[in-house]
C-alpha cells in the first residue's frame, strides 16, 4: 500500500538505491539428539505367599532418569506372546486369576510423551497355592477353639455329666407329630432339603432323618423320603436302612420308602406336592436347605391338614416356613435338632460346643468393640480374613 502511494503522483521522488550488503549464509540448524528414554528398573515378579494361588505380584522401580506418563505392564504365558495387562501410574501391580504352576514372564514399558522404553523380561515365575494361608488364620483359630470345646463336652458327656439343653418347642413336637401319624394310620413324609451333600443344612437334616426314622420304627409308621440329589438319596437310604437294622427291625425297612425323584427344582416340588395330596401324610418334615420351592411345598402340605415341622438355615425361605408350617426350626435350632432328639453323648457334646462357641464369639464381639471404641485401636483387624 505504502509502495503504491510512494510510486504514484507528482510528489513521487526518485530514491537512490542503497548498496547491497553481503551477508554470510545462515548455518543449517543442527537437529537435536533424540531424548534418551530410560526403561523401568529392577522388575520383580513374585508369587504372593500364603494364598490360594493364581496371583502374582509385580514390582518395579522408576527409570533412572525422567518421569514417565505411565507404565504399561505386559505378560507372556505359555505361548510366549506378550499381551498388555494394565496401564498404571504406580510401580506395582497384582495380576490375578492366573493358572497355577504355569510359567509367566513380565516386562514393563515406561511411556513418555516422546516415546516409550521397554524393560527387559523377568525370569519365568509361577503362581501356586500354599498349604498355610496366613490371611485365614482367624478361621483356623476359630476351628481350633470350637474343636477344643467339642472334645471337652463330648468327654464330659461320656463321663456322665448332665448336660442341660433347654426345651425347643419345634423339636418337642416331633414325638407328638409321629404319634399322630400312628393314630391316624398315615405315613410320615420327610424331605431332606433340595441341596447337595456339601450343604451344612443337608448334613444336619440327614442327622435328624435318623432320629425321625428311629421313631417311625418304634411306632411302626411308614416313612416316605423323596430326594432331589442322587448322593443325598444314597446316604438318606443308608441312614434309614441302618436305623431299621439297629432298632432290630431290618425286615420292616421298605426299599421303596426312600427314593430318588428328580434333580430339577420345580419338577421335584411338583412331585412332592403330588405325594402330599395322594398319600395324605399325617406329618410332614421339611428339613434342610430349600430355595423357591419351599412355599410351594409348605402351602400344599398345609392344605392337606398335615402337621408340618420345617427347619432350614436359609434366611430367604424361613419366612415362608414360619407362615405355612406349624413349627419351624430356625437356623441354629436345625443344627441342634439331632442332638436334642437323640440325647446321645456325642451329639449332646456337639450341641454344647456350639452353644459355648457362640458364647465365646459373643464375648469377643463385646470386648473387641469396647477396645476399639475406647482405645481407637482397630480390634476388628484381629479377626479379619484376607
Amino acid at each position, binding site marked *: 500500500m505504502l509502495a503504491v502511494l510512494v510510486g504514484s503522483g507528482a510528489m513521487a521522488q526518485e530514491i537512490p538505491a542503497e548498496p547491497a550488503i553481503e551477508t554470510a549464509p545462515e548455518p543449517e540448524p543442527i537437529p537435536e539428539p533424540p531424548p534418551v528414554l530410560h526403561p523401568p528398573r529392577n522388575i520383580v515378579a513374585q508369587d504372593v505367599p500364603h494364598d490360594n494361588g493364581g496371583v502374582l505380584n509385580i514390582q518395579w522401580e522408576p527409570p533412572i532418569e525422567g518421569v514417565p506418563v505411565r507404565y504399561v505392564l505386559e505378560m507372556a504365558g505359555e505361548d510366549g506372546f506378550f499381551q498388555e495387562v494394565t496401564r498404571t501410574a504406580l510401580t506395582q501391580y497384582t495380576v490375578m486369576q492366573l493358572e497355577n504352576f504355569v510359567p509367566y514372564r513380565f516386562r514393563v514399558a515406561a511411556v513418555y510423551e516422546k516415546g516409550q522404553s521397554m524393560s527387559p523380561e523377568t525370569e519365568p515365575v509361577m503362581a501356586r497355592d500354599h498349604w498355610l494361608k496366613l490371611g*485365614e488364620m*482367624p*478361621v483356623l483359630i*476359630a*476351628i481350633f477353639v*470350637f474343636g477344643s470345646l467339642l472334645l471337652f463336652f463330648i468327654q464330659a458327656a461320656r463321663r456322665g455329666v448332665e448336660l*442341660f*439343653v*433347654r426345651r425347643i418347642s419345634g423339636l418337642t413336637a416331633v414325638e407328638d407329630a409321629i404319634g399322630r401319624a400312628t393314630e391316624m394310620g398315615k405315613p410320615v413324609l420327610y424331605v431332606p432339603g433340595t441341596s447337595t*451333600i*456339601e*450343604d*451344612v443344612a443337608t*448334613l444336619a437334616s440327614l442327622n435328624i432323618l435318623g432320629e425321625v426314622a428311629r421313631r417311625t420304627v418304634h411306632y411302626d409308621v411308614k416313612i416316605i423320603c423323596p430326594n432331589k440329589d442322587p*448322593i443325598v438319596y*444314597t*446316604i438318606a*437310604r*443308608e441312614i434309614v436302612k441302618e436305623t431299621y437294622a439297629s432298632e432290630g427291625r431290618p425286615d420292616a425297612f421298605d426299599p421303596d420308602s426312600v427314593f430318588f425323584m*428328580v*434333580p*430339577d427344582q*420345580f*419338577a*421335584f416340588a*411338583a*412331585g412332592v406336592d*403330588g405325594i402330599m*395330596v*395322594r398319600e395324605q401324610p399325617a406329618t410332614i418334615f421339611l428339613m434342610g436347605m430349600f430355595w423357591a420351592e419351599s*412355599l410351594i411345598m409348605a402351602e400344599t402340605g398345609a392344605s392337606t391338614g398335615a402337621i408340618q415341622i420345617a427347619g432350614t438355615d436359609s*434366611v*430367604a425361605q*424361613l*419366612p*415362608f416356613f*414360619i*407362615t405355612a408350617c406349624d413349627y419351624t426350626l*430356625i437356623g*441354629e*435350632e436345625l443344627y*441342634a435338632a439331632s442332638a*436334642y432328639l437323640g440325647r446321645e453323648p456325642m451329639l449332646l457334646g456337639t450341641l454344647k460346643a*456350639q*452353644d459355648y462357641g*457362640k*458364647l465365646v*464369639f*459373643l464375648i*469377643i*464381639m463385646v470386648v473387641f*468393640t469396647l477396645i*476399639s*471404641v475406647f482405645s*481407637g485401636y*482397630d480390634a*476388628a483387624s484381629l*479377626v*479379619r*480374613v484376607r
Partner: protein
Amino acid sequence: MSMILEAFWIWIAALLTLAIFSFLWKDNVFYRTAEHLYIGVANGYSITLIYYNVVLPNMVYPIRGANQALSADGFSWGLLNPFNDHNYFIILPMMVGALYITRFIPSVSWMIRIPIGITMGYYTAIAIPASFKASIVRQLEASILTRSDFDSWSVVFYGLLIFLTTVATLIYFFFSAEHKGALKPISEIGILTVMVGFGASFGLTVMARISLAIGRFIFLFKDWLGVVS
C-alpha cells in the same frame, strides 16, 4: 411351516401351564399328567446334561486320550498323572464311584459305604472351614464396632442397633440356659429382631414371586391368546 410349529409349541406350553395351575383347584388328571411329564422330561434332560458335561469330559475323553497317547508314544508315567488332561488315573475314582451300584447286589452292598464315607468326609471338610469363614468369622468382624461408627448420630444409632440386636439374637439361640430372669427380655428382643428381618425378606420375595406369576399370565394372554398387545 415354522409358524405352525411355533404355534404348536405355544399351545403345548399354554395347556401344560393351565394343567399345573389346575392344582389350585384340586389334584386332578391334568395336573397328574403334567407332573409326570415334567418329572420325566427333567430326569431325561438331567441325564443328558450329566452325560455331556460330566461323563464325557471327566471320564471318557481322558481315557480315550490316554489310549491314543499310549498307542502313539508308548507308556510314560505321565499317563498316570492325574493333573494331565489324558490319564489313566481317572479309573481309580471311577471304580470308587461305581461302588454305588453295589447296592443292587445284596452280598456286596456294604461296599456302598466306601464312596459314601469318602463323599461325606470330603464335603464335610469343605463345608466346615467355609461355614466358619462366611458365617462366623466374617460376621464377627462386621459386628465389632469401631470408633468411626460413632462419627455421626445416624451412624451411632444404626451401629448400636445392629450390635445390640446381634447380642440379643445370639442369646435367643443359646440353648444351655432357660430363658428366664434377665435372659427372658433379651431373648424376646432377639426373636423379635429375627421376625422383623423375616418380615422384610418375606415382602421382598413375595414381590419376586408375583412378578414370576405375572410373567406366566403375560405368556397366556399375549403369546397364546393374543388378547394383550
